[in-house]
Every structure is written in C-alpha cells, then in structure tokens.
C-alpha cells in the first residue's frame, strides 16, 4: 500500500467542483465580474472578519438600546470623542447602516455561493460515482493483489464489501463513494444561517416589547397605551397585540443573611377578555405565555403607602409611590407631587431604605435589600410643580426651579405610621410599604423560525464536520491462463490518516476469499 500526494489528483477530489464562470456578455461583463468577486470565498472571508471587527465597538462601548443612561454619561465624560463616536453610530452599532451593509453583503455573497453549490450537490446526489482513474497506484492510498477467482466474482465480492457505499459497476471496474451528507450538512448549515437572519428580521419588523411597572394589587392590560415604555417593530400593528390583562396579587423576594437575592416570585392572575382569571406563579426563568405573548418578571422595588391630609384632616391623596432602586441594597429614590392642595403645590423628594442604617453624619443608608427596618426620608418643597408649563414631566423627577424648600430643605426620616407635618397644618403619613414589579410583554413572531434555523445550524454543522466524503475504486485485470489482478485505490479530502486505516481494512476484506 502506498501513500502519496499528487496535484494531478485534484480533479478527482471529493471537494465540490468550483462554480464555472459564466461567459461574459458585452454589457453584463463588469456586473458579472463584480458578482463573481462578491461570491468568492476570499471576499466572504474578508466580510466575515470585517463583521467581527465591526462588532468590537459594540462589545466595549455602552449601547443605547441596552443602557441609554450609560451612553449619556459616556458622552458627558468625553465631550470631544463622544459626539464624534455618536455620529459614527458607535452607540448603536447593531442597528447602524454600516453594520447592516456588512452583514447584508455577507449574506448576499453567501446566497450567491449557496445557490450554485446546492444545484451541483443535487446533481451529485443523482449521479453515479465517477469513473475509475487510469493509474490507481497514483492515488493517496492504493493496493494491488492477485486472486484465482474470476473477475465477476471478485467485483461482486468487492461490491458486497462496500455496503453502505454508493457503488456502480462499469465493465471490469467498480466505483464507490460515500459521505454525501457532508455537503448536505454544509448546505443546511449555511441555509439555516439565512433562515436565522430572516427570523431575526421578522421579529425586528413585526415584534413588540412593552414594559410596565405594577404595584401589588394593581394590574395592566396588553395595550400600547398602558405600557410605560414600548419598543414596537418597524411595521408592527397594534391590532396584533394579544388581548389579556394581568393583576399583581403579591410579590415576594427572599434574601440570604448577607443580602444576596435567592428568589423572586410574582403571584399574578391573568385573564383573556370575558374569561375567568387564572393564577400564575411568574418568576425569573419562568415567564407566562398567552397565545404567543410572553410576560416576564424583569425588575422589582418598593412603593411606600403615602396618605396626605390637609389642615382640616381631609385626605387629599392616598396612594403607593413607586421608588426606583439605586443600588444593590435597594436604597431607592422617591418623588411625590401634590398638585391639588388648597394652597401652594407641594413636592417631596427623598429616599426609601428597606433596612435603614444611619451613619455618624446622620445620613441614611440601606444595609440590605430585604424589608427589615424601612424608613422614608423626605425633604419637602412648596410652590409651583411646573405641571402646567406644557413640558412633559417624568413622575420620577421633581423640578424645584419654581419651588422653595420647606424647613430649609431639611430631610425627615419617617418610620411606618409616622407623619411629616406640613406648613399650615396638613400632614403626609408614611402608612406602610407595598412592593412593585416590572413586567415585560414580548411578542416575537420570528422566534420560532429562528429556533428552527438554530437546530439546522447545529445539525448541519455536525454533519459537515463529522461526515467524511471519500471514494474507492476497484479495477480487475484478467488475461486468459493467468491469475486475476485486482487494483484498488481511494481518495478522501479530509482526515487522510483515518481514511488510510479505513481503506486498509476495506482492502483486507476485499482480498479475503470468503464472501
């Protein structure tokens, strides 16, 4: 048996044939040339590396879609570099035109390569293994032996030995090939990449994401207007929102002794219009799915119960004020606005601390995210809240430009049940604490396609890397009166080492006289 390399064997290679250049038309010439350049492997490789390089800023710089606040901070910290980077879409890399240009070119190149290769492979699947090469001894692996059996018997035996191979007998010759699944897997893998891109595009165009903050006892309905924040797809239609409503009955978080979060549970009831409410235990990693709309628990916090009374003891406000957590110990900022007082409007700014500790300077802090020793520390302002100025205001921020601090802006820490005395006789009472949760509702019609494509990607990849395409040829030379000479040779494009072992085994079995 011999092992040797020969460039002339390239034409017998199991590698799919290169796509033949089309004849150049007079006008189409440059176009065809450009198309061939784009679909060449070298261009595809360059685009692939370009894609990797183009993603790097997205991996280091804050991205607006994920964290707009950090982008703002970054631009403020780098007054010269920031705006320049912003103009280059460096804070929204993955929705930028140049990033889209790269991956679209890459996919065009991919499709341009995929179509002719699929055609060739379909043809190869229907065709018979190629003719036996003239000199089998020049193949990377070959063998030669003599036998007393007659040629037909020998070839039949060889064909039997090569079970599982696609074989064809031509006169005194036998051609065999196997491992077609390699190219099938390869094509399935690349085709699935295209499908994945389509799935992502469907989600980006027709999908919807909305987030809403809900205090215990309250709820929301799945309509655009009721969300605090929405991210609709480019061609999303509000009519495609699944009609349902959801009520947060109870939210529970448990923590370890050192304040590490252990579990979050939102005990909810949901219902379709006109149906009875269904209970559901909504947790992280355990979303609620209703007809393709998925509801996730994505955040939580505390909402102190506040009761405001005027000087006559009349309740003018009674509600839960959601406070926004600022650190892992849930020190949270709160804003309370009271526009409907009889006198000047009132505003409060403060912090809520679930496990309150006070440092030497009298500043409050929180020692744990658990509700162990809550306090609401408020500073009060009076004057004009600016609500009538026409400029939309966030409920989480207080504009004090038209207000004056009460009691020199000194903050008062309230324990549950305690009250803040207001000038003129009114009061604000911290009555108790509820919890809130933020829910995200997502509808992504492209998700299933993306999942199917992912299965195709992994399956195709495994086939294309594990299956080896290889060919074996046998020729019988017989002359009357002398023993039959059998020549065999084989060729594999990948893993030559393993193939030479396989070929040796096959040759041994083909040589053996027993059928």
């Amino acid at each position, binding site marked *: 048996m011999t092992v040797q390399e020969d460039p002339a064997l390239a034409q017998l290679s199991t590698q799919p044939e290169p796509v033949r250049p089309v004849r150049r038309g007079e006008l189409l010439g440059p176009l065809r040339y450009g198309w061939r350049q784009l679909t060449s492997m070298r261009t595809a490789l360059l685009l692939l590396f370009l894609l*990797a390089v183009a993603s790097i800023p997205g991996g280091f710089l804050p991205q607006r879609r994920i964290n707009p606040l950090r982008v703002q901070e970054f631009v403020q910290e780098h007054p010269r570099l920031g705006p320049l980077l912003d103009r280059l879409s460096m804070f929204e890399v993955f929705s930028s035109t140049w990033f889209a240009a790269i991956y679209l070119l890459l996919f065009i190149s991919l499709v341009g390569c995929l179509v002719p290769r699929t055609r060739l492979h379909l043809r190869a699947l229907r065709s018979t293994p190629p003719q036996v090469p003239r000199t089998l001894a020049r193949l990377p692996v070959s063998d030669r032996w003599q036998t007393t059996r007659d040629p037909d018997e020998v070839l039949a035996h060889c064909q039997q030995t090569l079970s599982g191979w696609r074989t064809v007998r031509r006169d005194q010759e036998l051609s065999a090939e196997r491992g077609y699944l390699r190219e099938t897997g390869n094509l399935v893998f690349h085709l699935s990449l295209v499908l994945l891109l389509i799935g992502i595009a469907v989600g980006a165009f027709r999908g919807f*994401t909305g987030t809403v903050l809900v205090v215990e006892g309250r709820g929301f309905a799945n309509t655009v207007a009721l969300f605090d924040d929405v991210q609709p797809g480019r061609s999303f239609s509000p009519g495609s929102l699944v009609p349902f409503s959801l009520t947060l009955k109870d939210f529970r978080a448990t923590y370890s002794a050192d304040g*590490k979060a252990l579990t979050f549970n939102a005990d909810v009831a949901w219902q379709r219009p006109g149906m009875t409410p269904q209970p559901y235990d909504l947790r992280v*990693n355990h979303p609620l799915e209703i007809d393709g709309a998925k509801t996730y628990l994505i955040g939580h916090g505390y909402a102190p119960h506040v009761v405001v009374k005027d000087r006559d003891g009349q309740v003018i406000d009674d509600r839960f004020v959601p406070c926004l957590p600022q650190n892992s110990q849930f020190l949270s900022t709160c804003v309370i606005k009271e526009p409907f007082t009889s006198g000047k409007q009132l505003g409060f700014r403060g912090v809520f601390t679930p496990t309150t500790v006070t440092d030497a300077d009298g500043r409050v802090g929180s020692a744990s995210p658990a509700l162990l020793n809550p306090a609401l520390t408020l500073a009060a302002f009076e004057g004009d809240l600016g609500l009538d100025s026409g400029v939309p205001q966030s409920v989480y921020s207080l504009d004090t430009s038209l207000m004056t601090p009460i009691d020199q802006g000194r903050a008062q820490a309230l324990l549950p049940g305690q009250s803040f005395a207001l000038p003129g006789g009114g009061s604000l009472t911290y009555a108790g604490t509820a919890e809130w949760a933020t829910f995200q509702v997502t509808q992504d019609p492209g998700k299933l396609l993306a999942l199917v494509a992912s299965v195709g990607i992994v399956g195709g990849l495994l086939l294309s*890397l594990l299956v080896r395409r290889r060919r074996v040829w046998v020729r019988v030379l017989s002359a009357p009166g002398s023993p039959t000479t059998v020549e065999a040779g084989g060729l594999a494009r990948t893993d030559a080492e393993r193939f030479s072992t396989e070929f040796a085994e096959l040759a041994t079995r083909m040589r053996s006289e027993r059928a």
Partner: protein
Amino acid sequence: MPDSDLGQLGDGLLFVAVIVYTMAMLGFAGEQASRRARRQLVSAGGSSAEGTVLERTVTLTESPSRAGRFALALTGCGWLVHVISLMTRGFAADRVPWGNMYEFSSAVALVAVTAFLVLVIRGKVERSLGAFVMLPVVLYLGLAATLLYTEAGPLVPALNSYWIKIHVAAAIIASGAFLLSGVVAVLYLIRSRYDEKQSAGAELRFPVTLGPQLPSALVLDRVSYSVIAFAFPIWTFAVIAGAIWAEAAWGRYWGWDPKETWSFITWVLYAGYLHARSTAGWKGRKAAWVAVAAAVALIIDYYVVNIFVVGLHSYA
C-alpha cells in the same frame, strides 16, 4: 446549604492539582532538555572526543522517555485530583460546580488538560508538547485561584435554571478546547517561523529557538484544526442554548449584551478560521493567526467582559 468545610477541601485539592501539574510540566521540560542535550552531543560527537560523548549519549537515551512517561502519569494524577476538587466544590454548594468565575476557570482548565490527555493517548500528538500545554494551564489556574477566588455559595436567581447545566457546560467544554487550540496555534506559528528561518539560514531568537522542541508544523496545524472542529459545534450549541435561556430569563433571545456580542465575535472568528484553513492564500500562518485572535476574543468574552464591562452577565 453551602458547606464551607467541603468547599475548603475542594480549594485544597485544586491547590494539590496545580502542584502536581507543575511537577508534570517540569518533567516534560526535563525530557525536552535532555533530548536537546543529546541532540547537541550527537552533533558534536563527530569532531571531538568520541568515546566519552558516546558513553554519555547512551545514558541519556534512557532518561528522557522515563521522565516523559513519569510526567504523563503525573498529569493523569493531577487530572484526577482536579476532577475530585471540582466535584467537591459542587457538593459543597449543592449545585453544578460552575456558578462563578473561579469555578468556571477551573473547569475550563480541566477540559483543556482532558483534551490534551486524549490527544496524547490517541497518538495524535507527542507528549513532549506537555511542557507547553501545562505551563499555561498552571498559570491560568494560579491566576483563577488568586484573583477570582469565590467561596462556594448559592446562585443568584437569574442563574437558577436547568439551562445552567446545558449552556454553561457546553461553554466550558468549547472554551477549554478552544484555549488548547490557541496554545497549539501559537506553537505552530513558532514552529513554522523556525522552519522558515532555518531554511533561510537566518539567526534565531526566542521564542523561535523553541522550534526544534516542537512537533512538526504539519502535526501542530492538524491538531489545532481538529480541536477547533471539535469545539466549534459545541460553542455554536452553547451560544444557541444561551439564547434560549436568555429568552426565558430576560425576555429576548438576543440583545447584544456585551457577553453576547463577544461570543458572537468569537463564533465569527472561529467560523472564519474553518473557512480560511481551506482557502488558498489564507492557509497556514494566516489561518493560525485567526485561531489566535479567536482565542483572544474568547478570553475577552469571559474575563474582560465580566470584570470591566457592565452587562447582564456581570454577576458571576
């Protein structure tokens, strides 16, 4: 609930494993040093005092294989201790032993050592490569144990899912194999540079001088490729499993979180490597550089992103 004594036992065992690996590394290095000495003696033998040189050569031919075999046995012992160490950590915290960066790093190193042992046992590569493989493994484990040390403890709620078994296990296996292939690709670059300089008669400088101790460029290229071809589908699966998990935990399967972005970059670079290796003009050194770049992206994906970049994966 976490058992701190058991956790400490696991840490102690990891320390033992690192010591044994270090000894194995020295054994492999010793084998190479004596082989180099022998080579020099043989080449010098023609001109100088022949008798003495030949005597010494004879004694030297005995020791290298014994040192090498001993080093390989030590690697096996270290591997076993390493496995027990990880299992102990898992029992201590009553969960999978890859809940934080320290444990993840230890598991990645274990996969790299496993892959190396499998390659040696299956005869794909000479065991003398051990010195070059064990050095980064020891450094890596040392850094993980000193800089990333975390006591065995429970998981944060977002990690509390059966997907941690699937997604992270796949990521660990792929990462261990990828890092091994990165080391082999660097060695390939050294060896092929050595071959080039040697044939040109140019002067050699470190690290090119390591060339003669390394397996042939052909073998290194093949090993690097087969390890990447093994790890790439697993990495692909890890990314997809991560996307499925993210869909359940965060409400979207892909959101360009820094970790997602870097695992995408890593994936694209390895895909590029697999194509480059079979494309004219990219074969050989260029493809090896791509493999090195991809390994760097992998390290950024895990360490730089977790430590320096704020994102959803910042807990571990």
